[in-house]
């Protein structure tokens, strides 16, 4: 348990006079509620950001009426979605159809919980942190696959099949990049990875060549894992209409939509943790001040998110066989070589 959590428990025990057990459970509920709030706000903010960034690239204004720079537009959209009827096809598999969105949301929330927003702000710091995120986010594919399967729509089914192929393939190369970085840091615990960077500098500098190769692979595979252009075959508007969520409406659709954006944030956050020093400030200018790290963390993550949005509004889409060729013939061999290269670099002590 990190510092922040004990603050809440201390407060509950000393000021509210709760027993230790009760304080523990109350704390869990409070933290969970906070993360749900963060999830919703983050999703809405990122949707707004995507629309503004898209408008910037496309010679448009984007949302600019509701609130300053249209920031409440997505809130209005979410309210509209909440109020809409939940429709679906007649012969859908009701049970799977209903639970499918929750796979996506719950996994996004779980991955969000272990992110170190700053030294003090990390809900859950386990010693397998990085693997926890990858393993949890690989469950999300089940949600998408089930949605495609249970909708009783062939377009959804094709989208679901594509998601299965795509997300499972690209997890391999993200996993291998993580292994390479673990070779460098010698740990999988997120707080220790950040601690290593506090001593040795950001990993992209400390690990130099293999880290830069790793970062490139991570960005490509991460974009693919979050199903965004040029890897948005799962949705592929011009081919499949809207792919796996064709038959979802109202809030069920919004779950997928928000989770997609939160997943993008998680991928970017992972890139920031693994390569850009998480909440550490450049040259350590604000490292001593508590809670300021969260600002750096969000700024860096949004920078990576911006790059991913840049991809989306620039590149055309891959075809399914090209997508697999890229992964299995290029990214996986390169990332395997990269692990060896990283091992040699660490063995010879060539890191900074």
């Amino acid at each position, binding site marked *: 348990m990190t510092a922040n959590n004990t603050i809440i428990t201390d407060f509950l025990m000393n000021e509210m006079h709760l027993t230790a057990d009760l304080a523990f459970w109350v704390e869990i509920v409070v933290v969970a509620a906070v993360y749900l709030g963060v999830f919703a706000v983050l999703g809405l903010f990122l949707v707004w950001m995507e629309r503004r960034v898209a408008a910037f690239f*496309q010679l448009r204004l984007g949302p600019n009426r509701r609130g300053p720079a249209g920031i409440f537009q997505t809130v209005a959209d979410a309210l509209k979605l909440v109020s809409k009827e939940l429709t679906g096809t007649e012969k859908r598999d009701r049970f799977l159809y209903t639970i499918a969105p929750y796979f996506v949301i719950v996994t996004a929330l779980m991955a969000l919980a272990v992110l170190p927003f700053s030294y003090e702000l990390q809900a859950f710091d386990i010693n397998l942190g990085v693997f926890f995120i990858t393993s949890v986010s690989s469950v999300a594919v089940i949600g998408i696959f089930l949605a495609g399967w249970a909708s009783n729509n062939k377009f959804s089914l094709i989208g679901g099949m594509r998601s299965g192929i795509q997300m499972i393939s690209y997890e391999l190369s993200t996993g291998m990049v993580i292994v390479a970085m673990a070779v460098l840091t010698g740990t999988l615990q997120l707080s220790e990875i950040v601690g290593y960077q506090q001593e040795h500098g950001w990993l992209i500098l400390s690990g130099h060549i293999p880290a830069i190769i790793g970062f490139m692979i991570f960005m490509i595979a991460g974009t693919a894992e979050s199903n965004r252009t040029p890897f948005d*075959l799962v949705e592929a508007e011009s081919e499949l209409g809207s792919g796996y969520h064709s038959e979802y409406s109202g809030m069920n659709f919004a779950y997928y939509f928000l989770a997609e954006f939160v997943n993008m944030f998680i991928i970017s956050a992972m890139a920031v943790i693994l390569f850009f020093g998480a909440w550490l400030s450049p040259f350590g200018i604000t490292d001593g001040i508590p809670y300021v790290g969260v600002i750096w963390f969000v700024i860096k993550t949004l920078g990576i998110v911006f790059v991913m949005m840049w991809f989306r*509004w620039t590149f*055309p889409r*891959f*075809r399914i066989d*090209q997508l697999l060729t890229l992964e299995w013939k290029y990214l996986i061999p390169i990332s395997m070589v990269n692990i060896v290269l990283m091992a040699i670099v660490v063995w010879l002590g060539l890191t900074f």
Partner: protein
Amino acid sequence: MGNQQFLADKIRTEEYLLNMGPQHPATHGVMRMVLKLDGEEIRDVEPVMGYIHRSIEKMCEHVSYKQAIHLTDRLDYLSSHMNNEAVALLVEKAAGIEVNDRIKVIRTIMAELTRLASHQLWWAVMGMDTGALTTFFYGFRDRELINDIFEETCGSRLTMNYSLIGGVRYDLHENFVKRVKDFIAHFKKKLPEYDNLLSNNVIFRKRTEGIGILTKEQVIDFGMNGPTARASGFACDIRKKLPYSAYDKVDFQEILATEGDAFARYKVRILEMWESMSIIEQLIDNIPEGEHRVKTKAVIKLPEGEFLQRVETARGDLGVYVISDGKKNPYRLKFRSPSFANMHGLNTMSVGTKIADLVVNFSTIDVVVPDIDR
């Protein structure tokens, strides 16, 4: 190969049917394609047409020639001027109406502007079909300027109804020449942007090169035409073969490619935009003086007989065929529309490719669905 055969024997796959359309983002309107798929691979494509059939040909037979022109705008709405022009030219030829050079030049400039606008829209949508959404806005940005020029002179932006029998509806607006020159100067800078954004993108190249190949023989057999056929090396530009209006006075190249794949079709259209600009540049500086509309009889009757006029629209060879029995309305009128002819190639292009390739092929044929169904 032996290994693959082994797998194919062991793993049983089943073909299934997928209805693409009539409402589908890639079908550019109300077009339906019945796909027979094996996983992602296309085994058969059957285009089902007729969802937007408005019987324009039959309607034309019930109205006078002067009125019939106004119905033709809605054939291929992106080449509306060329459609008007085709009927106007046919009636002028059949009724022996001589038009002056000014009218010919105005029609040619308008036709080339329409072609540019149409190709810009095609480029915009082509990018969107391959997944690059930003091209849509870039294409429309430049097309807007052409529409503004049309609006000023013709009073309308898309279906202009500008060409009439014996001339054009209004004389050129006083700003016309300046605005067209400004547009050409602007677009000469912007067209290389199109290449930077899409043509030179490695993903786009991989998506289009070697996809949907048609040989010259196949193209001729299917009766395909326009840029789609020229990409396979079939010289079929009516502007060169049977010059009309002012095309015999200008110097331009017929763009041909030999590869016959989706990228060749893309390339031909991009290069055609340069040619269109060159044609406009040659004509814009010396538009002859004269009337914009010659005097015609109030009721035009064609002599008995059969007449044919072909023009090159943005999509290819539009033929207007009229059988006249000497009355003021045609006995029979037939439009030989380029989009309909080009659709014949879709099956050959797409069988054996993936769903994503079908979308690219459909996009590079550049169909306008109302032009198929008429």
